[in-house]
């Protein structure tokens, strides 16, 4: 049985940062990822990473913007840690080799971003996530003696010992189908969000909520699963992301009459209001007939100087050309709000600890919560690095003071039986896995999206529960061992349905409008009753609801205008 003091599941930014932080403490680390690490979805973060590094800026200002952006649902102790440690972390990344944009003096330069009161977003053109992740992967290669990489290993279940502590994970070598129980003193889930529950989404096909569901299944609490961000600028139908950096560089949002409609919704911040605000404004324009016939509004990037576009928005030039047939330097591009980010996730404290001893979560899989009801642009990369680092350090510290616990082999037997069951289903025994995924995605995008109400969410929940039943008999075509993506897809469907059920339950439960949760039947924020987190814990009868306090340190809730 391969064993490591610290085992990290997922190798995007949070996972890689956690692995490096743990290794620095002198423990043995394994990092397991279902895709090659550089394929992870952190790649897709285009615009940048926030830090109050400029001498004119303060961490308090960054923290307050984040608190306000979260619609006061973010935990302020966690937000303070993130904002305080951000400058040091950016410098650390710079020292490791990230090719951040420089100003004329050769120092780190910034760009403006949504919901921020200062230009504090550091960036590498519009490939910031990719650039940081590839640099972290360079470090993983450099420290290959301390960190063992398991690239293309698919994890399916956490092992819990008799004391109720997490002690390993069952994982499948994608290349040959062999299944192993990996032992660990600490396990960090860094498996990303669950965007694939929605269709379309900006999220990659791999974002199926694996870690969130695995933690939920062993009894960890999930938090604020109703908080799902719709990004204001995505390509209709395909869901591709156009970075907020475009608006940061000065691009305008226009309706079909050429009106700069954000004047009505956020007269001060205009296009750079919080994402939930901009997405609702766009959807309102579209719903009230001022959008284009394809259900979109226009993003006009032509107002940005061409030289600047090539230097700073290169990726968007390519996205426009390759995926929309539009030269963004010459004409506006049609966009709409699209599913983008899971603010909720596995409930953790500021060190990444979940309710299960030995089990940690970081990044989009986790809910610390620094994003609360709405994440600010360029805070997600920061979240992954800061809390990846905290989780890695604490997981290593725990490993150093903990004895090995031998996981029971039963979990491996159970997983093998689960795989055999899926493999044993005959064609025609039920629906195709792909059909169920499609119905799930369309249902969620129509009922649990920018605007929600009780009837719609209830309908979605009923659909999800029916699909859960149907998934039990859904069949696959591939019964082989080598690179059986069909089988992994069936297992991922299970993760997605667990996450979807929790998102519906949370959305139904929160009878107010806050951040990304906008209930047309409860259109106001209600601090008296709902300034609290919704926690969900797995029971035989589905998720059981409980609540936890929002931590407030220095910023009392106020009305939120931009």
């Amino acid at each position, binding site marked *: 049985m391969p064993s490591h003091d610290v085992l990290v599941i997922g190798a995007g930014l949070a996972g890689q940062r956690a692995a490096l932080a743990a290794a620095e403490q002198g423990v043995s680390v394994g990092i397991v990822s279902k*895709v*090659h690490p*550089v*394929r992870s*979805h952190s*790649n*897709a973060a285009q615009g940048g990473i926030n830090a109050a590094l400029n001498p004119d800026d303060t961490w308090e200002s960054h923290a307050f913007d984040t608190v306000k952006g979260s619609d006061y649902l973010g935990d302020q102790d966690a937000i303070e840690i993130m904002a305080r440690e951000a400058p040091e972390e950016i*410098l650390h990344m*710079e*020292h*490791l*080799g990230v*090719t*951040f*944009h*420089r*100003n*004329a*003096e*050769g*120092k780190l*330069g910034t760009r403006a971003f949504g919901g921020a009161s200062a230009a504090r977003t550091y960036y*590498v*053109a519009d*490939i910031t996530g*990719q*650039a940081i992740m*590839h*640099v972290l992967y*360079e*470090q993983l*290669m450099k420290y290959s003696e301390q960190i063992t990489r398991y*690239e293309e290993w698919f994890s399916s279940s956490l092992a819990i010992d008799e004391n109720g502590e997490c002690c390993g994970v069952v994982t499948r070598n994608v*290349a040959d189908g062999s299944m192993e129980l990996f032992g660990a003193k600490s396990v960090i889930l860094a498996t990303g969000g669950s965007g694939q529950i929605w269709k379309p989404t900006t999220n*990659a*096909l791999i974002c199926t909520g694996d870690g969130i569901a695995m933690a939920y299944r062993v009894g960890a609490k999930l938090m604020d699963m109703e908080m799902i961000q719709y990004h204001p600028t995505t390509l209709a139908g*395909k869901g*591709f*992301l156009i970075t907020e950096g475009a608006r940061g560089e000065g691009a305008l949002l226009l309706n079909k009459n050429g009106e700069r409609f954000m004047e009505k919704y956020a007269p001060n911040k205009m296009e750079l209001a919080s994402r939930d605000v901009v997405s609702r404004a766009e959807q309102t324009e579209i719903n009230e007939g001022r959008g284009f016939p394809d259900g979109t509004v226009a993003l006009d990037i032509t107002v940005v100087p061409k030289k600047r*576009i*090539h*230097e700073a928005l*290169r990726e968007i*030039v*390519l*996205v426009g050309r*390759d*995926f929309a047939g539009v030269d963004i330097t010459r004409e506006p591009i049609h966009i709409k709000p699209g599913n983008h980010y899971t603010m909720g996730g596995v409930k953790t404290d500021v060190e990444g600890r979940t309710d299960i001893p030995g089990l940690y979560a970081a990044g989009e899989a986790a809910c610390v919560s620094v994003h609360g009801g709405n994440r600010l642009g360029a805070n997600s990369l920061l979240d992954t690095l800061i809390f990846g680092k905290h989780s890695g350090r604490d997981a290593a510290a725990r490993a150093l003071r903990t004895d090995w616990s031998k996981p029971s082999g039963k979990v491996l037997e159970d997983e093998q039986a689960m795989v055999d069951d899926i493999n044993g289903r005959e064609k025609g025994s039920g629906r*195709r*896995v*792909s*059909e169920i995924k499609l119905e799930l995605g369309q249902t969620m995008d129509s009922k649990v999206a920018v605007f929600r109400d009780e009837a719609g969410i209830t309908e979605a929940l009923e659909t999800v529960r029916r699909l859960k039943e149907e998934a039990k008999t859904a069949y696959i*075509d*591939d019964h*082989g*061992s*080598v*690179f059986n*993506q*069909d089988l992994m897809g069936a297992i991922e469907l299970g993760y997605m349905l667990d996450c979807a059920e929790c998102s519906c339950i949370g959305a139904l439960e929160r009878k107010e409008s806050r951040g990304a949760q906008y209930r047309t039947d409860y259109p106001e924020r209600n601090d008296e009753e709902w300034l609290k987190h919704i926690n969900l814990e797995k029971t035989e009868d589905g998720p059981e609801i409980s609540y936890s306090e929002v931590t407030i340190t220095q910023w009392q809730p106020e009305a939120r205008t931009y």
Partner: protein
Amino acid sequence: MADYTIKVRRYQPESGEAAYWEEFNVELDPSLSVLDGLLQAKDRDDGSLAVRCSCRAAICGSCGMKINGQSGLGCQTQIGEAQEQANKMAAATGKSAAEASSPVGVEADHSGLHTGHAHTATTTAAVPIVIEPMGNMPVIKDLVTDMESTHWTKIRRVTPWLLPFGEPPEREYIVEPESMVDITQSMACIQCGACVSSCLSMEVDPLFIGPAALAKAYRFVGDPRDAETSERLADLAQDPHGIYDCTHCFSCVDACPKGVAPMDQIMRLRRKAGENGIDDPNSGHSHEMAFVKIIEKKGTLDESMLLQESFAPGVLGKLMPTKRAIKEMIGSLPTAVRGVKAGKMRSLRKLIPGAHHKLPDGAQDEVKAIYKHAEEHNEEFNLYIKGEEGDEEAAVEERLEPASAPGAEEASNG
């Protein structure tokens, strides 16, 4: 919506059978991608069809493959365009890309083409879009290749992490803004392997470090924060499978979905190696300089001068060749003889030093003018600075004197 037939080269390692072709009919909007087509076939017809994919937006680098013989990303190639390309290829050659590109394909076509999933009801006589796994890599299953043994091993070969000068500064490193933009072009690499798949040098020399790893190397060589620039350059220049193994074929530039232009990065490494006076056993730098010098002088390549100029340049080299130069020149003779035998030299007279003609009339002056222009405009071809290729061409056209353009054409024809 339109109907397409995609013809996929499949290999199922557990079946015990050789690779074979299978056609799938798919129905999707022409603006959707070849990957969307494959995923539709996988979702509707055969879930065992293996293809790595994740982001669908040309950023994760998973779905490198060959489409109608051209290496690229499945998600970045619109299926409508792929169809047009397949039609053009068929019209030009009378064959489909499968027949043209792969001998295995021809055999499979004659023996056992599986058409089980091709719903023949839609009997369009359309040419299939041909999809194959990437080249220069072992195939694991269908379109999934073993990138570890061919790609990542070579990435690790170039010491792919920053080697800074001692302890980092308290704040950020202060560097020229342009230097960061410069290396951001190679930083834009998503490690998809399309360049490796298309690399002709690697077909001949599988040990060639290759376009992706060398572009990665430039990311450090060009980084002012890296302390080991000359060590890196010496390492890459002296490796017999290093920077001088590239033959300038541009395949990687065509294949790269992100505008990294790996060949350009290799050329930058070569230039920096030359500037750093790195002595390489391949005489790669002096060979390159010989080309530059001969063309400046004569307009076209004088093969008779090439060997001597490469290994013993200038009058001094001619009068007093070093031992190494003599050895290298004698060692190169069989290649020269093979060239003559293979009819690559049309006239034996060309072998006589000095007999090679200059360009007629004022054409040689035009060549010199091009050299002068190039020296005065010593700019990098970098998409992060210049923008689209079209813009670049337009900008060059604007700058060049209208009269000099025909002259340049004549020179290249001559």
